[in-house]
């Protein structure tokens, strides 16, 4: 069974790119969300194995979404997708319980590796 992924990013382009990278590596993207609130809702519905989470998003940001998802499901596996210069936020996300992170612009293999590590 291929792992089921929820992709969260406010940019359609990034979602498409992540979807493609993951699909090529045998993952199954089961849902997408474009902000934190939506991410929490999609997570509840789809119960994915792993989430890729953008940080800067409207409504609820990625760090808050991490806290919210982990509050509901402490075993959730979340990989942050961060822009350069957002280290403080990534640190916050990891302290909140995110498993790993990649920094944009990233190599597709880096993302896939990070997701595999998070699933381990």
């Amino acid at each position, binding site marked *: 069974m291929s792992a089921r992924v929820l992709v969260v990013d406010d940019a359609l382009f990034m979602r498409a790119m992540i979807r493609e990278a993951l699909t090529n590596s045998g993952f199954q993207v089961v849902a997408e969300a474009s902000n934190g609130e939506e991410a929490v809702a999609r997570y509840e519905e789809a119960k994915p194995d792993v989430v890729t989470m953008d940080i800067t998003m409207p409504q609820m940001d990625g760090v808050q979404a991490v806290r919210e998802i982990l509050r509901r499901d402490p075993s959730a596996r979340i990989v942050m997708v*961060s822009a*350069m210069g957002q*280290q403080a936020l*990534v*640190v916050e996300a*990891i*302290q909140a319980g*995110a*498993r*790993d*992170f990649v*920094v944009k612009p990233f190599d597709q293999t*880096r993302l896939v*590796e990070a997701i595999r*590590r998070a699933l381990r």
Partner: protein
Amino acid sequence: MQLQRLLPVFLSEADEHLQALEEGVLQLERQGPNPELVAGLFRSAHTLKGSAGALGFQRMAELAHALEEVLEALRAGRGGDGLADLLLECVDTLRALRQEVSDGGERTDVQALVERLRAWKEGGAEDGLPVDVRVRLREDCPMRAARALALLRVLREHAEVEQVAPPEEAIAQGQLELEFTARVRAREPEALQELLAGPEVESVRVMPAGEARDERWLDLGPQARGKLPDDPELTRRASLRTVRVDVERLDRLMNLVGELVVDRIRFQQIAERLRRLDGANGLAQELAEAAGHLGRVASDLQAQVLKARMLPIEHLFSRFPRYVRDLAQRAGKRVEVVVEGQDTELDRSVIEQIGGPLMHLVRNAVDHGIEPPEERQRLGKPTAGRLRLAAVQEEEGILVVVEDDGRGIDTDRVREKAVGLGLLTAEAAARLSEEEAVELIFHPGLSTASQVTDVSGRGVGMDAVRAGVQALGGSVEVETQRGRGTRFTLRLPLTLAIVRALLVSCGGERYAIPLAGVQEIVEVPADRVHRLGSYRATVLRGNALPVVSVHEALGLPAPENPGRLLCVVTGGRRRVGLWVDRVLGEGEIVVKPLGSYLGQVDGVSGATILGDGRVALILDPSALVRLALREEELAHVG
């Protein structure tokens, strides 16, 4: 220091609590725990902890805290043997600390006792041994702080993390350069290395837990290296004569010296050409002399910088007595550790990298080598086994010996296992000499397969030990005698920064091959090399020798006319012939790591700058053997 005025009050109160603790423990021993008694003990420990902490008596506070935790566990119903002894030892140590408060000494170390108290609290054998895990991130790792925290998170899932340096809060605030060290307890410390590896991670080192000193800093100067006399005045004066230097700075210095050596050679070449041009002209002669002097200064400078990077192996050895004690306790054995030659100096990078292999060997000795006390008694041996760790400097490098007086390696069982695992046929196994049978323990299939014990966990990984030592340009030898013991000898280079190497050319490119991996150079006509698919071999003195060209091994297009010279290189007990065009000579080269742009190239361990300013790749003999033998396997399958 307002609180200092309260010191007399604290001291007399401490005396009372210590007295109460002692009486309580004795009562506990006679009558067993009852809630009221334990609660009374707990209060005493708690009060001591609070006051000692407020006054800044860290060790006392720490010990009282550990005591408090044990009493808490006792209150929660945890029982066990030997508790009274442990608690009394604790009271005695607290007394000694209280004495030091009044006379100003700092003699008593509480760490070991604190750890034993913790071990008792957590039920002893359930959790693993303490080890230090040092992670170094790559220079180009983005968001180091976040990466470090993510790695610590992974570590937490597989081990109990007791302490992190720099502390996590500091890391979160960005106070991290490239390295952090975590003191953890893990059932399988060896597995941590693989778990933490990743593209952002330069290296992961696992070593027995040692004193929490930051080894990124080297103390320079003889006073700082040895034990300092206890006289505080002497200590103060000695410390004025030493400076602390960041090791990275030394590495950079080493690099610069390397460049200087290259420049020196160029100067000499220019002087030589100039001399030929204008013969008797005095200027050319003067330049040659100046270049010669520059050369001597550069060599001395190089030697001094190398020396500055050296550390006594004591830094590593000093951790083992404690490690062995813990291992032995868990295995129900008695082991006496003898350490020799701890003053022997080695390059810091070598010391860092042999920690893992030494841990493996020591674990093996305690688990599999040394017999349980009853068995030893029956055999007429002293009940306590002897484990000897020794280091000696030889001309070309350092020998490190790990030796036990246990049962030796049972070569019959090794043969049996090898046959059982399908590594060889029963007939082939029977034909092996004793020496060859012992060598089987280094086979990857055998060493990770079956030796399962409580202490060693899954596998023992002798192949990893050999690979680790070979990666340093060293070698591992084993001697064993049934019933008498086993001795492993590690031959290590003094430094990794400079190696003696053979310079060869292949297809117009130059390569350096560390001499430690070169066995011989032979001339073999092309028609004596036979092909089997992509695999080639020749016969050398009656034995088949796989042959590869450097280009093939590195996956480069093959040159039109391969040479006739075979450079026989070894990796472990296997060898291959490396096809080269010409041998250019041998000499000392300064090893530089490949830039992160190239990353890891299999078969290449680094690069060096030659005298004429050209760059040569440094080949890694054991990796080349591995690459070549992979071809061999493929050929046999196909």
